[in-house]
């Protein structure tokens, strides 16, 4: 495992390998999104209770899943940065932060829009939305910390530590917010859950979730490539590559 990580982590090989991967990622993301939308918006029957407003679920729920999934991937690569000191893992953490923030923001907005017909107001301090909001602040903290430090290697380590501190705290925040919201509004308020998911709705949901994951890796790899370009500007392997 370690040998693989080191071998894969040298900028030239990463740049070349990922360049081949990008087109496949882009195409499969697009196809999956189109498939998910077609299934979710066109084919799936309206829900007997919420009518068609539940269709927002196909973007809200995958985005909410992504906000946590991306954080977990960042925590793993932060550990790789701090333990095995692989520079690229640091670039990957910093490349993932904006994507994670965007999905968290997307989950918040679509959650609020979905809640409007149900609760009559644009924002309700519902447990899930509050946790998403706090997660968004943590993502913003990560981006702000990274921008505040000039030395990229120092920034990677500082951000890595902060991400790991966050990983310990996120479950605590999540459960205390859940607990807080039950006593705050009482359990009567219908949670932001889709109807009992049966087969025709599960397919678009999973399709969109997979599409978002591929999208995340697509964007993260592109951002890491940009960092490699800026770090290795005057390196010969890059010049030769660009001449081709």
């Amino acid at each position, binding site marked *: 495992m370690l040998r693989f990580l080191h071998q894969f982590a040298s900028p030239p090989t990463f740049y070349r390998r990922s360049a081949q991967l990008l087109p496949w990622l882009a195409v499969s993301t697009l196809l999956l999104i189109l498939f998910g*939308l077609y299934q979710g*918006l*066109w*084919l799936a029957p*309206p829900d007997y209770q919420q*009518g*068609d*407003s539940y*269709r*927002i679920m196909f*973007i*809200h729920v995958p*985005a909410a899943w992504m906000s946590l999934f991306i954080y977990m991937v960042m925590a793993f690569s932060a550990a790789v940065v701090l333990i095995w000191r692989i520079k690229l893992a640091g670039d990957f953490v910093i490349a993932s932060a*904006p*994507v994670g923030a*965007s*999905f968290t*923001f*997307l989950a918040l*907005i*679509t959650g609020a*829009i*979905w809640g*409007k*017909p149900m609760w009559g107001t644009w924002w309700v301090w519902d447990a899930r939305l509050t946790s998403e909001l706090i997660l968004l602040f943590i993502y913003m903290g990560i981006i702000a910390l990274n921008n505040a430090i000039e030395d990229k290697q120092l920034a990677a380590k500082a951000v890595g530590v902060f991400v790991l501190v966050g990983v310990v705290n996120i479950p605590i925040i999540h459960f205390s917010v859940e607990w807080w919201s039950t006593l705050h509004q009482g359990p009567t308020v219908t949670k932001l859950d889709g109807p009992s998911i049966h087969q025709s709705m599960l397919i678009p949901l999973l399709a969109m979730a997979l599409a978002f994951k591929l*999208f995340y890796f*697509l*964007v993260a790899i*592109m*951002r890491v*490539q*940009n960092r490699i*370009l*800026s770090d290795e*500007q*005057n390196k010969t392997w*890059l*010049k030769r590559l*660009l001449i081709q």
Partner: protein
Amino acid sequence: MMNIEQLIEMGGYGNYVWPAYGIGLAVLLLNIIVPLYKKQQMLKSIIEAQHRDKKNDT
């Protein structure tokens, strides 16, 4: 199966579902365009630097 009018009207929730997906599309596009634009800038500046080096060497 729904035809076009039903799709847009979305059982009365059209003006909730479509803005949500619109924002979703905007966020995804933003995340794609920014790195692409940066990559272009980076490549341009590197190639320019190469020309300058080549000019100084000759």
